[in-house]
């Protein structure tokens, strides 16, 4: 235990930073490519990218040594993770890890393994990637620490429930489930109480595992930080209300990693403070995410992780920028509701009112508001084969948005994780036709 703890501290405080600085030097020393520079449609790269890489490299590197050193929890992306921080948990987000697997295009390989075990290919690609990674030990991040506790909240989907049950069986460890009733309009008081009661039970389990008690002040403090972090993230997103937007929606997808994985920490807040300042400075200087932004669009649903590059190039070359996305916005909407004066009650409210746990009228009004505030001319709704709860109702949303927000809308069939459910040529063709329709 003690040696493990030393390893863990060294990994986080010495080797992790050393690795990131090594990477920087490697880049500096790399011979510059000769010949004319390739013209690209993007604005200058964000300085914050380097800090983001540092943080995430350190996070995954230190994580390798977390089990045995500190308690480890695996949690879903919509889970009130703040609660774990004062108890010293190391948290792992299988969804974030699966997104990395998707960017690295290893999902098909991992999926093959779980499909042979009898899991259907129709199951969310995140679940397949994660279970595949657990079964084979294969991961692009080196190693994931073994969990002591699994924490799953059904506010994003029911898939996570079965997925985490499979994990609980595999690791033979406790699973805490927070069940959030689906919200029609506003969640009634008894729903919120129901969720709050479960959060209190969660605290008990987490305290038992760590043998520590959580101080109310510590809980209030971490809640305050999570709230500040979400608002800082919101400030970053808000910067794109300016014209040109200082970054692209594709940038947002990558820069959301700390608000998902490190919510409630100083590191997370420092990062977004810096990013917000950089973006606001770009706005002042008129520097855009694209060299020339001619059309502003909204994106709905998860990104197509393995094809972000291809799509952003295609759109950027034609001056199209996703200036807002319902997905990145989700971590702003919920987090701003949590309140240090009532950590549990406000968490119950915030995490029940998550976009995927709310009815279609709510989603429609959110999209109409984003369309108006960010002044977009069109929207692309990604119908994601993996994520059914996010994709259901999109054809109706499309019709209503067209009529009521007076913007052009297209539905793009793809998948956020598995390239086998995606046809690049078809997607290219539809997006190009969509862009042509603005001519």
């Amino acid at each position, binding site marked *: 235990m003690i040696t493990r703890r030393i390893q863990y501290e060294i990994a986080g405080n010495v080797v992790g930073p050393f690795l990131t600085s090594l990477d920087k030097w490697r880049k500096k020393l790399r011979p510059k490519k000769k010949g004319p520079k390739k013209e690209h449609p993007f604005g200058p790269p964000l300085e914050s990218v380097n800090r983001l890489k540092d943080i995430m490299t350190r996070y995954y590197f230190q994580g390798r040594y977390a089990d045995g050193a500190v308690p480890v929890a695996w949690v879903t992306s919509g889970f009130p993770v703040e609660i774990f921080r004062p108890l010293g948990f190391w948290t792992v987000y299988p969804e974030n890890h699966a997104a990395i697997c998707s960017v690295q295009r290893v999902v098909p390989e991992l999926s093959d393994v779980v499909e042979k075990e009898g899991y259907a290919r129709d199951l969310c690609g995140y679940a397949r990637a994660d279970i595949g990674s657990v079964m084979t030990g294969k991961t692009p991040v080196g190693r994931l620490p073994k969990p002591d506790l699994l924490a799953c909240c059904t506010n994003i989907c029911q898939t996570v429930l079965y997925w985490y049950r499979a994990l609980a069986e595999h690791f033979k460890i406790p699973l805490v489930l927070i069940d959030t009733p689906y919200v029609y309009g506003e969640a009634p008081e008894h729903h919120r109480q129901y969720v709050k009661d479960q959060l209190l039970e969660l605290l008990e389990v987490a305290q038992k595992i760590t043998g520590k008690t959580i101080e109310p002040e510590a809980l209030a403090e971490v809640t305050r930080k999570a709230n500040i972090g979400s608002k800082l993230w919101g400030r970053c997103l808000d910067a794109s209300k300016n014209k040109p937007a200082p970054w692209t929606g594709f940038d947002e997808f990558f820069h959301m990693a700390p608000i998902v994985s490190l919510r409630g920490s100083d590191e997370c807040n420092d990062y977004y403070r810096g990013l917000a300042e950089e973006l606001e400075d770009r706005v002042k200087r008129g520097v855009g995410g694209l060299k020339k932004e001619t059309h502003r669009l909204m994106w709905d649903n998860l990104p197509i992780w393995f094809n972000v590059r291809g799509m952003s190039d295609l759109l950027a070359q034609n001056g199209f920028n996703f200036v807002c996305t319902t997905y990145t916005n989700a971590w702003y909407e919920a987090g701003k509701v949590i309140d240090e004066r009532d950590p549990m009650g406000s968490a119950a409210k915030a995490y029940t009112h998550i976009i995927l746990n709310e009815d279609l009228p709510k989603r429609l009004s959110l999209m109409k508001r984003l369309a108006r505030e960010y002044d977009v001319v069109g929207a692309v709704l990604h119908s994601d084969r993996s994520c059914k709860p996010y994709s259901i109702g999109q054809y109706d949303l499309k019709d209503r948005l067209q009529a009521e927000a007076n913007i052009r*809308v297209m539905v793009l069939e793809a998948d956020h994780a598995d390239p086998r459910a995606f046809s690049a040529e078809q997607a290219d*063709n539809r997006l190009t036709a969509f862009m042509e329709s603005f001519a």
Partner: protein
Amino acid sequence: MTRPAAIGVDVGSTTWKAVVLDASGDVLDRIVEIGNPRIEEQTTKNLAVLKERTGAATDIPVGATGYGRKRVAASRVLTEITCHAKGAFRVMRSAGILIDIGGQDSKIIHVEPDGRVRDFAMNDKCAAGTGRFLEVILGRLHVSFDDAPALAARSMRSVAVSSTCTVFAESEVISLVAQGESVEGIVAGLHASLASRIASLAGKFANGTSIWMSGGVALNSVMVDAISKAMGANVRVLPEPQFVGALGAALSVLP
């Protein structure tokens, strides 16, 4: 003869088409051929033929569309959606819903009163509702694409083919044959099945606007009737339906 002013090439998944226009946008000449996988070769050869036949200048602007459009050395490259809308609008001069059943995909395009594309729908990652659906299953029945309409028209009774999925429909047809159903009836049923898929794709667009059809399948009158029936509205076949995409491509580069 008026001077040629633009050429439009439409490289589809089954056929290669091109038209030559004069300055006012009237068609002077055209070619349609079965598509050759060597797209560059076929295009170079046919463009030379068209230029020679019409006396077009070597540097006449060329617009390209279709799934193979990027293989054409063209002055402008546009998707089939935009080109079909442009072509249809040139002929109809009004708003409407255009149905184009291609070999690889089917498109429903909502054309605005000014000729722009308002919205479009396509079959996704699936051959249901495409020309390939007919091709595969007619092949199974040893019926040629060209003979299908006459056979279907002769049938006294259309046999219900409930699957719109190409793979499932194929096995369904095999069992229908085994049950002794007539080939004519099955072919008629196939037309109805494809029409129902198209109607469901187009359904929400067709709110009283006129409905047009382009593409090679529009030459099949039984199919046009089946779609009209499925949509509960009269579908009008555009003149020279196979060339609508090429016409749009040519119009896009007309000086």
